[in-house]
């Protein structure tokens, strides 16, 4: 409420504030430190043993001499002390890198604990001791990672102090706004803040004093408006006192990091850091550093890259939203210094890609001039390549850039250096050049990576190259005409990687291939790719993985078309079946495709098969017939039998259709009670019911085989249904029988409801022959007897409801399909009506509606007999 009233009054000042905000908050286009952290930790590692030396004594110079004079016994005793008691000393030697990281994390935790338990002095001591570790450059290749770990602790500390003082400003009434001015801060908070600064100012050693003060830079906001802008330049100058150039550049990086966070508008200090760094640049090649490298056995080319993370960060901070002129000036200054590869690399990693790209030729020139012994050149070319992947160089220079760069890259001896560099440049090549250049590049990579099986150590890079290439070549006929593409794929010899690559290729193919293809190059190559994927399937492959692979292979199969050359198409499907027999969804897809092919043929011939096409269609049918049994899922098989049977019928292959239907019928007894659907066990009856209904509709038009008896398929099916073990207290069997009645009723019509073109169904075969009808009637009676039998068994209390609804549905069936002029049928229906109502289980509304329907129908011509029936059907009143 308070804020709401205050808001409108402050519009003017708040606008001003907002203007300032835009300057003082770093946008999302600034890559934050957090994203660099992981990379540094992963890259700068060591196998050497590390040590942590913590001395929690009082801040006096005598500490050093006192410890060395300490007897061994006392010392070990002190080392046993677990916590940071006054004067305790802890020296941890022979730590592996992981131990070291754990220890630092413990320190971070104990800092938080100390703070939480109000031991502020202890917390400060921990932070001082930690930052002291940053002056230690033994095991120098680990230094960047150490910096990351320890500045994490400093960040924690800075945050704790700031929040603590901030919370002191929060009275019980008012909360300090985010943009407070020092006048709003109360005296206690100021005094506390001042105390911290005095305490830190008296830290003896330079490096801890610098780091700890920088970590609480933000707290200056409590004391004065200009505090931060006065502090930053002073801290910047303070770094000049750090003798070791590596330690000093990281200190600068930290200051820039804190500065960007707290006051990004103060660019001056950032620039000052950069120029100060240039002034001390010569130290890197001075005696002190060189001696140290000799002692540690570190070569210059592995020492110089240690500077990169810090310099990249400083450069990135400066170049963020910086005017072009400043960037140019920085570049010029870097150029002037001798052996500037290190600087050049940071310029390339931190500046805007467009800036670099437009000056690519300059950079190549500068890179070439660099001293061989210093900073590794492949890293320089890598950095340049990264920029060119993001921004385009001037049109005219493009080829020359590639030539110049590749000339150097191809000379790299070490396969790791080579591949790291080549990987980056592939992007540029693909983006601006044709398959010829890409082919050359791929050939070069193969040449470098094949000796000694060097590719085994570089799968991620090789994979990334493939991804880049296929991302740019969507036309697969072009892609596969790149001669070296397939030989390149051969380098992926580890199966898991190989399959991954294949998946990538297929994904891109499915995504970008618009038209069906019959290009033999594509087909050969992709069949090979798909086969690789398929062959990776084994007993341990996960379901998801199989589904994914099948999806990709199916995508490919659907895209293959030989146009009117149906025989070729079929032989492709034959080949595909032999290749992908382990993936069920692929086989299903193939069966569908072949069925489709048969129907296409029929369409082309307009239903009149010639001898040749008839033979072809039979081949298709045969294909399906022998493929289906190899599937596992029973319902897939049933449905495919039915479906293929329909296709065979449509193509006038009567005996083949019979074979399909017989196969389906003989499969039904094998349907298990429960089936697995999406990992859950479900009863299968409802699926079976659905399938059978579908099957009956087809059976109507299947003509009887001349050598078998009348309706032999229906009889056989009825026998199977009869013998099938149905659920004990279910009515599905009766529902099926009701459906059978519908079928039989439809079969006894003079002309059937539907036909297949060029197939004579039973109506024309028998022409309403009385023997056929009698046979049909006999079947009806058997089925009805079965139904009535079942209704009788339902006369028990708990089943009455089922009895009523089944009775009514039977009644409805008779009404719809039966001839009610037949007295017996008429009587049966009346009985059923009574049965349905007998126990008061029937739904009155349904009964009323049914009766109304009968009355309505009785008014139609030839339906007079229904009037009489309606009179015999009483409605039960609910009383």
């Amino acid at each position, binding site marked *: 409420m308070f804020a709401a009233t205050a808001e409108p009054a402050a519009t003017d000042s708040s606008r001003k504030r907002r203007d300032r905000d835009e300057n003082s908050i770093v946008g999302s286009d600034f890559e934050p430190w957090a994203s660099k952290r992981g990379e540094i930790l992963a890259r700068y590692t060591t196998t050497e043993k590390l040590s942590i030396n913590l001395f929690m004594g009082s801040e006096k110079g005598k500490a050093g001499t006192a410890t060395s004079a300490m007897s061994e016994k006392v010392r070990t005793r002190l080392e046993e002390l677990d916590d940071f008691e006054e004067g305790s000393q802890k020296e941890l030697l022979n730590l592996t890198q992981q131990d070291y990281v754990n220890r630092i994390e413990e320190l971070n935790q104990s800092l938080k604990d100390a703070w939480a338990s109000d031991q502020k002095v202890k917390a400060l001591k921990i932070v001082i001791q930690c930052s002291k570790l940053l002056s230690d450059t033994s095991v120098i290749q680990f230094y960047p990672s150490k910096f990351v770990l320890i500045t994490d602790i400093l960040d924690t500390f800075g945050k704790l102090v700031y929040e603590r003082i901030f919370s002191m400003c929060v009275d019980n009434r008012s909360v300090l706004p985010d943009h407070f001015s020092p006048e709003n801060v109360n005296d206690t908070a100021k005094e506390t803040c001042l105390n911290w600064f005095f305490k830190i100012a008296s830290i003896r050693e330079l490096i801890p004093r610098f780091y700890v003060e920088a970590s609480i830079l933000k707290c200056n906001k409590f004391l004065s408006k200009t505090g931060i802008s006065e502090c930053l330049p002073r801290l910047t100058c303070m770094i*000049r006192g750090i003798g070791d150039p590596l330690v000093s550049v990281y200190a600068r990086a930290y200051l820039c990091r804190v500065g960007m966070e707290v006051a990004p508008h103060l660019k001056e200090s950032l620039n000052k850091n950069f120029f100060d760094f240039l002034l001390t640049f010569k130290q890197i090649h001075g005696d002190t550093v060189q001696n140290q490298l000799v002692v540690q056995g570190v070569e210059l080319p592995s020492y110089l890259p240690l500077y990169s993370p810090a310099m990249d960060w400083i450069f990135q901070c400066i170049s963020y939203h910086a005017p072009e002129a400043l960037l140019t000036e920085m570049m010029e200054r870097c150029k002037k210094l001798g052996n500037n590869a290190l600087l050049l690399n940071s310029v390339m990693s931190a500046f805007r890609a467009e800036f670099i790209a437009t000056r690519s030729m300059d950079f190549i020139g500068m890179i070439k001039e660099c001293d061989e012994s210093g900073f590794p050149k492949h890293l320089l070319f890598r950095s340049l390549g990264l920029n060119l992947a993001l921004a385009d160089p001037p049109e005219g220079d493009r080829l020359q850039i590639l030539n110049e760069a590749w000339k150097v890259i191809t000379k790299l001896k070490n396969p790791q250096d080579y591949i790291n560099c080549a990987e980056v440049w592939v992007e540029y090549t693909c983006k601006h050049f044709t398959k010829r250049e890409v082919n050359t590049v791929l050939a070069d990579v193969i040449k470098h990576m094949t000796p000694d099986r060097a590719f085994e150590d570089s799968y991620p890079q090789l994979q990334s190259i493939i991804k880049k290439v296929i991302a740019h070549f969507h036309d697969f006929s072009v892609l596969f005409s790149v001669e070296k593409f397939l030989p390149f794929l051969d380098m992926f010899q580890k199966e898991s990687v190989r399959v991954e690559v294949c998946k990538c290729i297929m994904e891109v193919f499915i995504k970008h291939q618009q038209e069906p293809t019959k290009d033999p190059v594509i087909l050969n190559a992709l069949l090979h790719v798909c086969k690789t994927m398929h062959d990776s399937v084994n007993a341990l492959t996960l379901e998801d993985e199989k589904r994914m692979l099948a999806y990709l292979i199916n995508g490919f199969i659907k895209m293959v078309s030989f146009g009117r050359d149906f025989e070729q198409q079929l032989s492709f499907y034959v080949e595909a079946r032999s290749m992908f027999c382990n993936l069920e969804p692929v086989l299903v897809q193939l069966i569908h495709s072949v069925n489709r092919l048969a129907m296409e043929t029929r369409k082309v011939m307009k239903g009149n098969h010639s001898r040749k096409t008839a033979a072809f269609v039979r081949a298709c049918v045969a294909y399906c017939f022998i493929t289906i049994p190899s599937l596992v899922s029973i319902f897939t098989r049933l449905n495919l039998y039915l479906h293929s049977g329909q296709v065979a019928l449509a193509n006038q292959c009567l005996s083949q259709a019979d074979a399909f239907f017989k196969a389906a019928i003989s499969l039904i007894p094998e349907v298990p009670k429960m089936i697995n659907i999406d990992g859950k066990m479900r009863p299968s009856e409802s699926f079976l019911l659905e399938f059978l209904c579908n099957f009956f509709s087809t059976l109507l038009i299947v003509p009887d085989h001349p050598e078998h008896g009348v309706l032999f398929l229906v009889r056989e099916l009825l026998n199977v249904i009869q013998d099938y073990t149905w659920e004990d207290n279910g009515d599905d069997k009766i529902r099926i029988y009701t459906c059978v009645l519908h079928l039989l009723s439809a079969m006894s019509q003079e002309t059937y409801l539907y036909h297949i073109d060029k197939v004579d169904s039973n109506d024309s075969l028998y022409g309403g022959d009385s023997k056929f009808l009698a046979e049909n009637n006999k079947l009806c009676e058997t089925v009805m007897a079965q139904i009535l039998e079942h209704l009788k068994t339902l006369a028990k209390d708990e089943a009455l409801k089922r009895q009523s609804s089944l009775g009514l549905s039977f009644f409805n069936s008779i009404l719809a399909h039966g001839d009610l002029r037949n007295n017996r049928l008429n009587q049966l229906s009346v009985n059923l009506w009574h049965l349905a109502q007998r126990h008061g289980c029937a739904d009155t509304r349904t009964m009323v509606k049914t009766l109304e329907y009968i009355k309505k129908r009785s008014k139609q011509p030839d339906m007079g007999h229904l009037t009489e029936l309606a009179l015999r059907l009483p409605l039960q009143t609910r009383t």
Partner: protein
Amino acid sequence: MGTSLDIKIKRANKVYHAGEVLSGVVVISGKDSIQHQGVSLTVEGSVNLQLSAKSVGVFEAFYNSVKPIQIINSTIEMVKPGKFPSGKTEIPFEFPLHVKGNKVLYETYHGVFVNIQYTLRCDMRRSLLAKDLTKTCEFIVHSAPQKGKLTPSPVDFTITPETLQNVKERALLPKFLIRGHLNSTNCVITQPLTGELVVESSEAAIKSIELQLVRVETCGCAEGYARDATEIQNIQIADGDVCRGLSVPIHMVFPRLFTCPTLETTNFKVEFEVNVVVLLHADHLITENFPLKLCRT
């Protein structure tokens, strides 16, 4: 924990000047009501002088501590004997800081041989059965700003093997040239000591460059006087072999309590000096001394 007694001084930094009114509250809290024989408040301020063992010998140092010089000592009765209700009782007080006669309220200073300290003590007298309660609390006195403008007194210095005194074998020294300046040796105590230092050249690698702040305390007594210089703090301004020709900032904040404006009285003196200490590899130690004059403006 029964009854507790606490003094809260109004100013967060507890800093007062002569002539000002020291104010605050005494907080008494307890679960039950508190019977007492009166509460009083005392302000005390004194200079404690200690003779160093080095100057006069161990025993004399022990026995012959110079008698403390009292600057201020006054007591007021806050509450007459009676009873405090249970819970928290706050009694505000105001204490004008005036001195009698020609005494001066020296600035608070914590040293080794000279200590100038001011305390505020609250006493609650109680019946025989309960212990008396006492609470003391230090407050800080700053001397009045000095009148007149401070004249800056910059000092330039150059250190080479030749400028050194106290060298045993000059020929063994590595060659070096260090230049620098202090912006002023007349320092305002609230402002840092500033300056610059450049290592122009040095044959030996530099290990460290430090600023050593030293107090020089002089105590007068019957037999003469004792003068002792001791370190207050040591601030490193360069660590390792710094870049040649690049100026390194000299910057040191004067610590509170441990420094005060340079003080000279008939009985004692407190003065300050700074040493620029350069440590070279092979353990050469070079020191350049600068006396400072601190004041408060």
